[in-house]
């Protein structure tokens, strides 16, 4: 484990039922950078994130987060270590209000004052949420829900953020805003992001590096620049 990488994955095998979806995934996530995880449907991108955050137990392999082996560690402890996962579909709790969802993100924290400060900061970063504090999750638009899910994850002060398809179902302008925000967070807080996206162009426009998955394995790992500019590579793995 080098200081430059926040997460290392070795030979990860995981799946649902008999056939594994992830077939020996090796991956290194550089610290303080945005890494995009790309690939066709069914390649295993969501399964990868779910295995990293512990929702799915791997059958083989190692996950090392900041020097600590995550195997055997309970899901609910991960957020304390600085690992946050915003799942596909966002996971905004519809029955709770915006304020309650946000507070939920930081309930594990011991410092009440720090939590209040970070919640205030969240409202500054996402003014649309500030106006909807007492509204329940039901009443938010797709873009607002994504912002809430992101704000909620950030209130936990993560060092690594796993984001599953944040631009799904969002208008292009809103999606672009969210992706641009990730860049700002990386620059301001040194946040590391592992970003699963179907929106390849959008993802590569903000990412520093990218990993392309195919049939449960990592097919290519390269810088975002190379993935954008190398036409042969793009044609072969990204379909455009």
């Amino acid at each position, binding site marked *: 484990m080098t200081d430059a990488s926040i997460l290392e994955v070795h030979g990860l095998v995981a799946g649902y039922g008999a056939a594994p979806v992830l077939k020996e995934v090796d991956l290194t996530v550089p610290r303080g950078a945005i890494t995009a995880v790309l690939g066709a449907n069914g390649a295993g991108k969501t399964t990868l994130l779910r295995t990293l955050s512990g929702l799915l137990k791997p059958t083989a392999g190692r996950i090392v987060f900041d020097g600590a082996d995550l195997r055997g560690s309970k899901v609910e402890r991960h957020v304390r270590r600085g690992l946050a996962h915003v799942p596909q579909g966002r996971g905004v709790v519809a029955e709770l209000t915006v304020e309650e969802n946000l*507070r939920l993100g930081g309930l594990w924290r011991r410092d009440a004052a720090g939590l209040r400060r970070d919640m205030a900061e969240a409202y500054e970063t996402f003014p649309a949420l500030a106006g909807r504090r007492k509204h329940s999750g039901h009443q938010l638009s797709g873009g607002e829900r994504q912002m809430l899910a992101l704000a909620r994850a950030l209130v936990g002060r993560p060092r690594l953020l796993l984001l599953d398809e944040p631009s799904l179902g969002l208008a292009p302008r809103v999606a672009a805003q969210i992706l641009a925000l990730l860049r700002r967070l990386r620059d301001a807080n040194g946040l590391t992001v592992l970003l699963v996206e179907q929106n390849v162009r959008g993802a590569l426009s903000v990412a520093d590096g990218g990993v392309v998955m195919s049939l449960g394995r990592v097919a290519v790992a390269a810088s975002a620049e190379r993935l954008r500019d190398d036409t042969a590579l793009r044609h072969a793995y990204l379909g455009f």
Partner: protein
Amino acid sequence: MDRFVFLTFDGLSRGAVYAAFALALVLIWRGARIVNFAQGAMAVATVYAAYSVTSATGSYWLGFGAALLFGLALGVVVERGVMRFVAHTSPLNAVIVALGLVLVIQAVLGMVYGNEYRPAEAPFSRTAFTVGGLAFLSRYDVFVFAAVVALMVGLALLFTRTAVGLRLRAAAFAPEVSRLLGVNVAGMRTLAWALASAVGALAAMLVVPTGLGLHPTSMELVFVTAFTAAVVGGLDSPLGAVAGGLAVGLLLSYVSGYAGAEMTPVAVLLLLLAVLLVRPSGLFSGVAARRV
């Protein structure tokens, strides 16, 4: 007219107890998606515990407190020891296991305490006040109302104002996401059971001294009645549980008063049948929650 007024107040008083018991059922339904068919038996066990403590110490209130504490403990034991193993399987399994638990609890109580009906003393007078010749509420009725109102206020504050309450709700609404946010969902489920069991204990302590008598099967009809009340109100709705409880209490009081006490079980079951046929989701059922 006098009779009607008396029956109304008596019905509301009974209804308050059904409301409390229905709340216990709703708590577990919301927290674990299980109807706790063992709620009545668990509750009567706590009343026996109170009986033992009161006999030993001479204090009704120590017994009362013991019932609530024992209720908390029993909820934890039942969830950890039994119910968590059937939580993810078909709902029928949970029902069968709960019914089995009822048999076990009733048998153990019978072995330890015997199967005679024990008289249960109310801590306050059960004679109704009369105002201008109309029979009103008794001191005990006022106590029952006060206790149930305190319970509802306490639960409402717990769930809406405290961190634990937020965790309980999040764990019930969205268990997977809650785990990602650091909530100990399994622990919250146990806590929900403990709370519900303590609420059931309170309800049983309130109803047993009203002529029910203490016997291992005392709470069976109360369970069915409270379950009916919860279904009438909508199993997902605490407000519905309370409204359902009061409504059912009133109905049974009128039936008992005008048609005879033997008709009350019939009335309960007919009501349950009617609700399940006409509006199974209950009167207060809201929009089905969407996971987003």
